[in-house]
């Protein structure tokens, strides 16, 4: 059956299963990805069906996971590694930034590093410290890496297919609070480009740009705004490196207003880069400065405070009001 309704986590699972079937060089590596199927069950059943030689439980050492994945990639494998939680990626940050991102260029194009680093990210699940962070800007800043984040099951399935097939390292940010959201996945569809944005709701008065977990929120914001007679366009960026600036530009030339929403701290976040570039591209179209809604310049708060920290309907609507007031 080509079309099936499935949760986002299941869609990634199905995508990884397909990748393992399609290419014997694809490997899954990470902590607890085997028997347990990962703490979010994203790799559930894969070791059982593909063996522990291809779905590999690793020692608890993130730098080791990424560093050995680089070696495996040099040998011709296509490792898909799981970092268990966003806040655990930093032991591997050196290997990702210093080695994984640069090796293709250092070799003058002689070697390729088709490694996917999966990172469940973001808050909203009431987790303990280091389990709710959004470090995507720290990776988007690094040349040599591609950074993407799906917002729904269909994209999760197809973007993972494309990430595995990419000859570049891809940091794949999975919106963990949307893991259980269900949507239809057509496994025989022809997907759009991995790094292309998509208009998920058309509008005329203002553009909301988001990715990953914030796309659903922005759709809810657009619904609420519609009740007040305002027509918001919602853009799912899908890719954070590269960003589909052409798509944002097209939308902003129409709506003349842009609000960027992400969970990550606003300061030096992806919204800052988008605001700067769109201001440059659309200076004479803009009716208001590009506004950003995101986290604060503070450590991710304890779970009881995360609702205050994370963008929500009212905070995004507040930004929409401020933009429209210009």
């Amino acid at each position: 059956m080509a079309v099936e309704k499935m949760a986002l986590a299941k869609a990634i699972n199905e995508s990884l299963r397909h990748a393992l079937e399609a290419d014997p060089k694809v490997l899954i590596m990470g902590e607890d990805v085997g028997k347990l199927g990962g703490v979010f069950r994203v790799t559930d059943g894969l070791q059982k069906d593909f063996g522990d030689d291809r779905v590999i439980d690793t020692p608890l050492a993130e730098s080791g996971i990424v560093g050995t994945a680089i070696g495996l990639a040099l040998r011709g494998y296509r490792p898909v590694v799981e970092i268990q939680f966003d806040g655990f990626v930093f032991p591997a940050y050196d290997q990702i930034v210093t080695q994984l991102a640069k090796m293709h260029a250092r070799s003058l194009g002689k070697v390729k590093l088709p490694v996917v680093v999966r990172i469940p990210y973001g808050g909203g699940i009431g987790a303990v410290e280091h389990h709710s962070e959004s470090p995507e800007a720290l990776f988007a800043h690094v040349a040599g890496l591609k950074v993407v984040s799906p917002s729904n099951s269909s994209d999760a399935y197809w973007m993972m297919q494309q990430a595995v097939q990419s000859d570049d390292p891809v940091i794949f940010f999975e919106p963990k609070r949307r893991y259980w959201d269900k949507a239809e996945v057509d496994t025989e569809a022809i997907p759009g480009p991995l790094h292309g944005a998509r208009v998920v709701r058309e509008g005329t008065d203002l553009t909301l740009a988001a990715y990953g977990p914030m796309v659903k929120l922005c759709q809810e914001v657009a619904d609420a705004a519609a009740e007040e007679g305002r027509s918001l366009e919602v853009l799912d960026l899908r890719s954070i490196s590269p960003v589909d600036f052409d798509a944002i530009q097209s939308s902003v030339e129409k709506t003349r207003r842009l609000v960027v929403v992400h969970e990550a701290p606003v300061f030096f976040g992806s919204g800052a880069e988008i605001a700067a570039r769109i201001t440059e591209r659309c200076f004479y179209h803009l009716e208001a400065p590009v506004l950003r809604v995101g986290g604060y310049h503070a450590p991710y708060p304890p779970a009881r405070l995360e609702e205050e920290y994370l963008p929500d309907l009212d905070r995004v609507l507040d930004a929409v009001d401020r933009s429209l007031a210009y």
Partner: protein
Amino acid sequence: MTVESTAARKPRRSAGSKAGTTGTKRTTRTTKKAQGTDPELVQLLTPEGERVENAEYDGYVADITADELRGLYRDMVLTRRFDAEATSLQRQGELGLWASLLGQEAAQIGSGRATREDDYVFPTYREHGVAWCRGVDPTNLLGMFRGVNNGGWDPNGNNFHLYTIVIGSQALHATGYAMGVAKDGADSAVIAYFGDGASSQGDVSEAFNFAAVYNAPVVFFCQNNQWAISESNEKQTRVPLYQRAQGFGFPGVRVDGNDVLASLAVTRWALERARRGEGPALIEAYTYRMGAHTTSDDPSRYRHDDERAAWEAKDPILRLRRHLEAANHADEGFFGELEAESEALGKRVREVVRAMPDPDRFAIFENVYADGHALVDEERAQFAAYQASFADAEGV
């Protein structure tokens, strides 16, 4: 002087406590071990060039002919000549930096010649001798030191990976590559080079552990050249480095890194057992960095000349020359021809480096991604337009 066959794996307890003792005068300790009096050290050639028996490792070099001994000598002499030329080229402003291997020729040539063509090597940035053994054109090593590229050779051309500057990272790449070798069912092996300083890096310990857990066919070859820039061994470790292996569950051996024959034998042993599926091994090649860390370094600020003098007496090239001469394996004709060959190599390196062109400015944007990236394309176009604006102004 014969090294006990089991000594390599069963070190004296006192060795550990000795290394761990603080306040010991550095020169005293180094001199003592460097004289080869320490039974931990696998040695087949004494500093005087005398061949000593070693029941455990003799078999690994039993096939070495006089011709091959001369070959090892030639490798070391040419490597040293190349290295000296690179140092001179840095002084002349042709290279921005050079990391000399002076003094480590035996460790590198011995281990490098132990590798098979289908083995894979992961070097640091000082493995010029190993690169030589792998057939990498030495002038290719100089691009990154001249600043025309960040690694100028195809790693798969000679199964010799790019130089890795961030300390210890390559130990994990080697381990991962070896895991791949095992998955492929191949009977080749992988060797990871690093130094005493790198032994402090988490990545090296993680590599040891991954290699042990997955029984990966990788040999960890640590050149303990006594100095990590200005920091001596005491700042890196409380136990002799080869003993680290035991805690990870694989054998570790300390070899006289100034003895090319012993380095060859021990590395053959380690590679062969890896190829047989017996897993990783750690070799600590006990040697000495005769020169500065790099051409930017000034060792006089942190170590004494008498220490260097003590090591000069154990020079790896001199030791093999003494052996060749004593055994009548080489005559003046051989040494004379080699001298001429060395000079020719130096001349070629000099000429190639001086003629090495700066890269095209658009190389900045090349190979950032394998599959392309919209931002790189955009910035390349902006850069081109910016450059073109000067041409317009000049009426070109």
